[in-house]
């Protein structure tokens, strides 16, 4: 699991462990101490944007062309593969950003190779990505399904709350004098969720602006912005979206997706949404 968090996360975590090992908790105040520990840890783990508000300086944008290699993604009736379309759009978007904005752009893959979802998020986290954009082409069982949509991560609030309570219940009574959360997956998962919570607002804003531009440029059905528990979005420690440019499972849209002209339009739309997002006052 910790692989997915990348270097940035791990170094914070080490720092956090050292602090915690020296912490002595009186037996009478176990739960309170637990809560204080959680709060302290969240401060250490929370993104800079949430902590200070001013040092939200984006230096690196990471673009993730979905799928690749043996993992083809969705397939179209005419034989087009999702992985090829996402690669083409990704390269065009990289070129646009590099030409017009002062950011470093990192691709999670730059050719047709397999890259695991863990490694993709690790690439983003290791490069200290300020924004993460995953590019996909959609697929549905229904041939008529059509349009573009942009996703950001759904945090299952019920799930998180349930786990938090279960954790406190299970560990509140048998707590010894010190805690070592480095061995505690539940606690790490809760902390990771809380840290990601801080990005959700920005992710939804970025998704909204990108979707507006996709709608304006592509002339497809506008499916809007949505939340989903996508693995790639869960692993990335910055605002992150996943763009579904159109349906490769829809023969009309498949032919559009396969044309270079359309791929350029998709890249241009994402670029414009990104530009609008970056000019937003904090």
């Amino acid at each position: 699991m910790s692989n997915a968090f990348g270097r940035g996360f791990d170094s914070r975590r080490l720092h956090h462990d050292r602090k915690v090992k020296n912490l002595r908790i009186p037996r009478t105040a176990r739960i309170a101490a637990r809560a204080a520990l959680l709060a302290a840890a969240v401060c250490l783990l929370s993104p800079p944007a949430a902590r200070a508000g001013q040092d939200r300086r984006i230096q690196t944008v990471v673009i993730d062309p979905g799928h690749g290699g043996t993992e083809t993604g969705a397939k179209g009736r005419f034989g087009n593969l999702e992985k090829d379309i996402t690669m083409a759009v990704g390269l065009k978007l990289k070129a646009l950003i590099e030409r017009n904005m002062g950011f470093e752009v990192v691709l999670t893959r730059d050719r047709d190779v397999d890259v695991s979802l863990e490694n993709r998020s690790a690439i983003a986290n290791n490069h200290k990505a300020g924004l993460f954009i995953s590019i996909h082409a959609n697929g549905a069982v229904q041939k008529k399904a059509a349009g573009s949509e942009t996703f950001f991560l759904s945090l299952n609030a019920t799930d998180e709350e349930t786990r938090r309570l279960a954790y406190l219940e299970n560990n509140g009574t048998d707590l010894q004098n010190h805690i070592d959360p480095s061995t505690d997956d539940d606690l790490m998962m809760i902390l990771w969720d809380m840290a990601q919570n801080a990005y959700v607002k920005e992710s939804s804003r970025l998704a909204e602006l990108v979707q507006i531009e996709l709608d304006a440029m592509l002339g497809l059905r506008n499916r809007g912005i949505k939340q989903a528990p996508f693995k790639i979005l869960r692993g990335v420690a910055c605002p992150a979206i996943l763009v579904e440019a159109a349906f490769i499972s829809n023969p009309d849209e498949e032919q559009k997706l396969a044309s270079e002209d359309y791929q350029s339009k998709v890249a241009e739309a994402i670029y414009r949404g990104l530009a609008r997002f970056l000019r937003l006052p904090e």
Partner: protein
Amino acid sequence: MAAKKRKGAISTQALVLGGLALVLIVLAVVFFTGGGGEKVKRFVDANIPKPPETAAAPAATKAVTLFFISDDDDSLHKESREIAAGPTDADEAERALAELVKGSEKGLLSPLPPQTKVRQVFIAKDGLATVDFSRDIVDKFSYGSSSELAAVYAVVDTLAFNFKAVKKVVILVEGSERDTLGGHVDLSRAFFPDYSLVAR
């Protein structure tokens, strides 16, 4: 005196070494003979005993609601079906999911590849249902985001809607945990039902 002591030390050492070797051999035997299918066990091990195999299928049936997709929109659509009842929720859940794979009788579409087999459903006391599908669920279809979400939530909603004991669902493939079915939806955590996807 010194020599004698040394001799004693040596035999103690030999004893200790011999003991260690014995322990190692025992451990090796345990290692190589035990521990098969560890991954599956973790979920199956919980306190509920496997139901006894009944020879004759009970005549009673139970009405369940399955969640399919439709060619006309992006929602999940309900369809009711009679399945053989009992003896346990898990047995009924396996049958309900098998019906979901088999497909609609009213022209709706199944979001799961027809070759998929439901290997096992296990329902733990805390409300976590674990569903184990055959490899076909990933091998026989190239998922996009939409079809992957539909597949996952058709399963999750079908289980949670019909079985009160089910609060959340984990999906396994061929007995093991998997990242995703097709590169999108995170399978490493349990899913709560999402009825907002169901057509009204």
